[in-house]
């Protein structure tokens, strides 16, 4: 462990910018959920109250994760990856909910291991790269865990995991033509799966329907975003007709945000995230640890792609994919997984003595 100059907030400390961005993003989520709900009541059925409880849990996790040094994280990467993979295997023994096996029912909350494979995979690939394992083996292991998610089935997360893997390979010392070869191989496998009926017809229909009909939720959310205008409806005295959008508090929350706070709000949200990624990129370029570089790149890819897919879905440029907006959408699993990512990034920041 490197020498530490200054610490803020506690013995292990925190990067102040990161903490503030994290809190502001959570607060934006509260505000948006507030406009969607009938107000706050202290009852777990109230979506705003739920989100506040999840945020408190997330802040706790953020600080707790910061106490784990990167050396320890490096050390526990393989067991962690192994554990999550085993959990992904055993999920096939659970009862399906609405046709998919994605959750372990823990009573109060549902545990969704596919949220944590995003983290485990990034750590796993980073460590393998640093220790210079054969790239073919790394690819094979990654593909195995990804296929477990694919068969849940969860097409959204599968795509996300593939993108994370590809981006991490891309910034490594692998040759570009190998990646092209891999993509080609992936395409061939996709059609083989298709031929053997391993791809859910429902998921296929979603893609094919996209080019034929207009999805109700998407057309509604386009209207909502559009009627937000530059300044949004939140501060307007005369509100326009309420626009009905299905699942607006989870996957389609960006439409509610853009409707309430307009383009200025969207700029603010983008600004916060861009500033965050800018800070992360600076560390990537300056840190001496290869492990940290790959971890940061992997996490960034994960967050960026989630945001990209979510916004694209909501504005209707791609078919509907159930992908939450990190730290904005209602939902415990997503917030908690994201707070773990922020916690690790925070640790990397302070180990590099960047506290503000």
């Amino acid at each position, binding site marked *: 462990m490197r020498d530490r100059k200054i610490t803020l907030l506690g013995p292990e400390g925190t990067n102040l910018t990161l903490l503030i961005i994290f809190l502001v993003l959570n607060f934006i989520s509260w505000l948006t959920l507030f406009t969607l709900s009938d107000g706050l009541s202290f009852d777990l059925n109230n979506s705003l109250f739920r989100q506040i409880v999840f945020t408190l849990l997330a802040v706790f996790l953020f600080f707790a994760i910061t106490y784990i040094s990167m050396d320890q994280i490096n050390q526990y990467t393989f067991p962690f990856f192994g554990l999550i993979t085993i959990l992904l295997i055993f999920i096939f023994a659970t009862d399906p909910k609405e046709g998919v096996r994605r959750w372990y029912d823990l009573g109060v909350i549902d545990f969704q291991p596919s949220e944590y494979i995003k983290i485990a995979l990034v750590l796993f690939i980073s460590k393998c*790269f640093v220790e210079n394992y054969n790239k073919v083996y790394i690819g094979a292991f990654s593909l195995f865990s990804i296929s477990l998610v694919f068969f849940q089935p969860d097409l959204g997360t599968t795509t996300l995991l593939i993108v994370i893997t590809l*981006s991490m390979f*891309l*910034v*490594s*010392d692998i040759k570009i033509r190998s990646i092209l070869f891999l993509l080609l191989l992936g395409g061939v496998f996709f059609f083989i799966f298709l031929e053997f009926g391993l791809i859910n017809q429902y998921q296929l229909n979603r893609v094919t329907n996209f080019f034929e009909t207009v999805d*109700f939720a998407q057309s509604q959310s*386009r*209207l909502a*975003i*559009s*009627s*937000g*205008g*530059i300044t949004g409806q939140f501060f307007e005295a005369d509100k*326009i*007709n309420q*626009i*009905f959008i*299905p699942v607006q508090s989870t996957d389609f929350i960006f439409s509610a945000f*853009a409707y309430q706070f*307009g*383009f200025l709000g*969207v*700029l603010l949200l*983008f600004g916060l995230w*861009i500033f965050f990624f800018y800070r992360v*990129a600076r560390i*990537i*370029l300056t840190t001496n640890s*290869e492990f940290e*570089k*790959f971890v940061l*790149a992997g996490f960034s890819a994960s967050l*960026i792609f989630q945001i*990209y897919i979510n*916004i*694209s879905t909501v*504005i209707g*440029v791609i078919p509907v994919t159930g992908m939450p907006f990190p730290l904005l959408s209602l939902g415990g699993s997503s917030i908690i997984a994201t707070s773990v990512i922020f916690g690790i990034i925070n640790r990397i920041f302070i180990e590099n003595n960047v506290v503000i």
Partner: protein
Amino acid sequence: MFFQQKFRLLTTLIGIIFLTLLFNVYNLQTSDREASLVSVNKQTLDTFYIPSPRGEIFDANNNKLVSSSLEPHLFLNLRKINDNNRSQYEQYVKYNFVDLSEDFIDEIFESEDLLIRIANIQNLNFDSRQSLASLEAFEIFDFPVRKYEYNNIASHIVGYLGEPSFEDARDFPLSINPNIVGKSGLERYYQDDLAGIPTEIIFKDDEIEQIIKGTPGKDIFTSLDIKLQTIATESLLQGIELANGIYETKNKVQRGAIVVLDIRTNEVISLVSLPDYNPNNFIDGISRTEFNKLNISGAFINYSIQGQYPPGSVFKVVAYWLAEEENIYPEGLSSRNQRINCKGSLSFGFDDGSQQVYNDWKEDGHGNVDLGSSIKQSCNVYFWDIALKIWRDYEGSTAESILQEYAKNLGFGTATNIDLPYEADGVVADRELFENWAISQPERVRPEGWLGGDLMNLIIGQGAITSTPIQVANAYRTLISGNLSYPYINKNRESQPEESIGVTEDFVNFLLKDLNSVTNEGGTAHASFSILGNEVKDVGGKTGTAQNSGDKNNTSWFVGVDSVSNPRYIIATVVEEGGSGSAIAAPVTRRVIQSLREMEITPVKFGEITE
């Protein structure tokens, strides 16, 4: 090895992708905005709500009292009805659903609603359903069917359903959309729990765009024993019939109530009120005349918690407790065992110089009586003497209303907070209340205000006091268990901590012994209870006969305790205009006790006339 060069390249690429995304959003929010606002304003998204199945209601032995089931119903999508196809659909409905009245069919087609429910098609076969569904204006949705399994039995507890009135909509805003609300009983008290979340059917113009499934309501598990409830209802009916056969009164006897409480937990085991109604009749709407008939008979009033009656002699236990607790006995006496000689009347003078004569119900008097035997024989003179003592010692001071304080500590004068709506408070009057009334309702009080005579009346449960049957049962339960709490029906109701009233075990034993003497040899209720044979030695109670003003017959009261050796149940019975408590209410209670003790149940027989 991490490649910085490729990383920079990738970052730039991502930056460009996000700029196009942002540009997309910008376009949507600026240049496309006008067009969007127009279509938002044009957009007629409407929602039709179908209620979810309400929670079911069970008794303590898991018998289903109220059930809910989903059955397919035919709905008409009125947005798809136009001048061209209207007569065709009208003919179709008339021809296929012959049970529907002409008026109802006219109503259907004139409705402004989105959808209208035409009929239950549970009994139609698959082909008929298919052929209905093939017509474009017909829709088939599951609609909940509520059934009250025991009809009239326990109708006041479970309540009934109806369309929300203006007041209902204010109290239960969520009931507006599915347009159904609990009108009384548990259906109302637990409306929000029972109702669940309705299914939303979202229309865009005349097409159904989306269906958001609701969630069913929560079940309620009650402490009721439906078997006992049935027997108690029968017993009360028998008592009422008996009273009608014997008395020649102006008014027909038809109202009464029974409350059975579990002494250990204060759970409500039975709660009967007559006359009652069949909640099933309200499901598809009840006719105005039928409703009015029920309303005039008082069927919608739950007399067990809303009927406010002078308690008469059953109230004497309050003074009994006070005497023991405060050592206030008739003048010259200092313990429960010392006696006065009751000559059948009491004459005395008040400080204001007025001379009074009070006559006991028993003209010849009860002879030498102590505290216990005044309960046993329901001697008024003994209690009047206690009232006199209070009046002479404390008139005008704060201790003057010590009897009222004791009554209030047992829950008289305030609602017991049972989990049913519309509970009445009852009244326990004192000087202060009389002064308030003198201003607000001067016709209720004499100009002289609170007098010694009012206290004399109060101590035997007459005059300015009214109480509900549940209050009386709860007061006895409080005295015997030593704890005040609220009675409850829903076993999962958040329970209130029991509040100790500080009675000693000795006191409770004395009380039980004296209540026991009432049903035994020489007691006022012996005639009604002797049929229990040897087991009469283990039960107890107190009779009450409360006088009413005007030409109304007396209110018949009995509070029973089962058993004396192991106090488990309090049974409070009241028959409005039932006359003597020992003659009517006591044998009714006796029949309920026979059921509780799993004995042979014998018909209600007229007892002895006492107070």
